[in-house]
């Protein structure tokens, strides 16, 4: 299961890629595998505020509904519109074309509470047991 270095992760299986004040958010390879075929994504409005630890959207697979939790707070500056017609991009490339939102971070300190790739990988292994 791919867990790229350099990203930060939540216990709820979101990842965040930070670039200065901006950050891109998506769900992990492990998460998309657990969910199965993703058929619907509910995205937040551009310009809206999302808060760390709170739901900001929804992904639905054929079998289940799962909330998306914000790894960090900030203003949504863009959303991946392509997911509205091709939600399967999350299954196919969760860290690339399957990204979900881009935000402008409110407080970079929030990133300190997130997991690094090794810690997150460990958590996934435990959940697989």
């Amino acid at each position, binding site marked *: 299961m791919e867990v790229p270095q350099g990203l930060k992760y939540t216990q709820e*299986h979101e990842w965040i890629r930070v670039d200065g004040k901006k950050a891109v958010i998506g769900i992990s390879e492990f*998460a998309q595998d*657990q*969910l*199965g*075929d993703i*058929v*619907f994504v*509910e995205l937040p409005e551009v310009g809206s505020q999302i808060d760390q630890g709170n739901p900001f959207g*929804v992904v*639905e*697979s*054929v*079998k289940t*509904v*799962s909330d998306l939790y914000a790894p960090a707070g900030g203003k949504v500056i863009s959303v991946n519109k392509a997911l*509205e017609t091709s939600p399967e991009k999350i*299954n196919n490339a969760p860290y690339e074309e399957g990204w979900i939102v881009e935000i402008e971070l409110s407080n970079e300190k929030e990133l300190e509470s997130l997991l690094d790739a090794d810690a997150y990988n460990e958590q996934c292994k435990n*959940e697989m*047991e």
Partner: protein
Amino acid sequence: MSQITSSSLKTTPLIDIHKELKGKLVAFAGWKMPIQFQGVIQEHQCVRDGVGIFDVSHMGEIEIQGPSAKSLVQKLMTNDIDSIKDNQALYTLMCLENGGVVDDLLVHRFSEDHYFLCVNAANTEKDFQWILKSAGSFDVTIRNNSQETSQLALQGKHSEILLQKLCDVPLSEIRYYHFKKAKIHNFTGIIARTGYTGEDGFEIYLRGVDAAKVLRSIFEVGKEFNLQPIGLGARDTLRMEMGYALYGNEINEESKPFEAGLGWIIKLNKQDFIGKEALRKQKDAGNSRRLVGVRLLDRGVPRPHYRVLKNGGLVGELTSGTFSPSLNTGIGLCYVSPEYAEAGTKLGVEIRKLNVPAEVVKLPFLSTRVKKD
């Protein structure tokens, strides 16, 4: 995304094969069953376009044998057992005195005094007890063979040609809702031309101890047909596209079978059966609700218990709902009052407080390709 760790779950003799095939195992009706292998959508299409195989060993098998077998089965079932001959199967309900549904099931007739029933996994023990209780002084033996019986469902248009390679009986002679005792890869079983997908195919009953060997041989000859293992996830999307009722969702001990569109398997003109008077009254009173298909007109995935609206007011609740891989849209089943049951009626399905436009469609959502005579 929680993992099932309960060790009290029953497993089928095929669990090792499911693990080898990387099936995702979940708890279902007290069993540890594969919900998916490659992915629900891909598995669904595999059955619609070619052929797939399901382990449905969780289903229950109950055998009724003896001089009074036919009268007992006739007393238990709403459909007319006189309408089938040897080696024929019949879809029927078993009802309570008040007309509530104990289970929906298949009756298979070996002979006038020998039958076997295929019942829902979650109801197996309840059904068995109900049959024992109803049998009273009937001269019959009733056996619950569910533990030692496995069941495979081979479904899709290539089913016959594939299975024929392993079978000693001409499968083309087994017509829809008929069955035969046969040898499959030298193991004795029962092959019935039945299914829960809307495609042509077979349900195969085997001794549990033989099931793994038979399944492996089916995979072996299935290679040239791109046969794939199919999980319970696709079983649900396939049956929902056909509008087939699922016990526990569309029907239960409180539901009214005529409202569920199951009047065709209730024969009020046959001799007495349990529930007959109550069902006659239901029929005379007419339906206050009807089960209809609902199709979303916008993006979204309807789920069981989502509210169904008309002009903002509540008119029903989904009994089933899913994403339809064949139609690439959300579909569901719902009881509504007859005034909203006409195909084309515009409704809404409430998804996370949003009223998503939907319309009533005639069932099935997809036309069936079973091999009818």
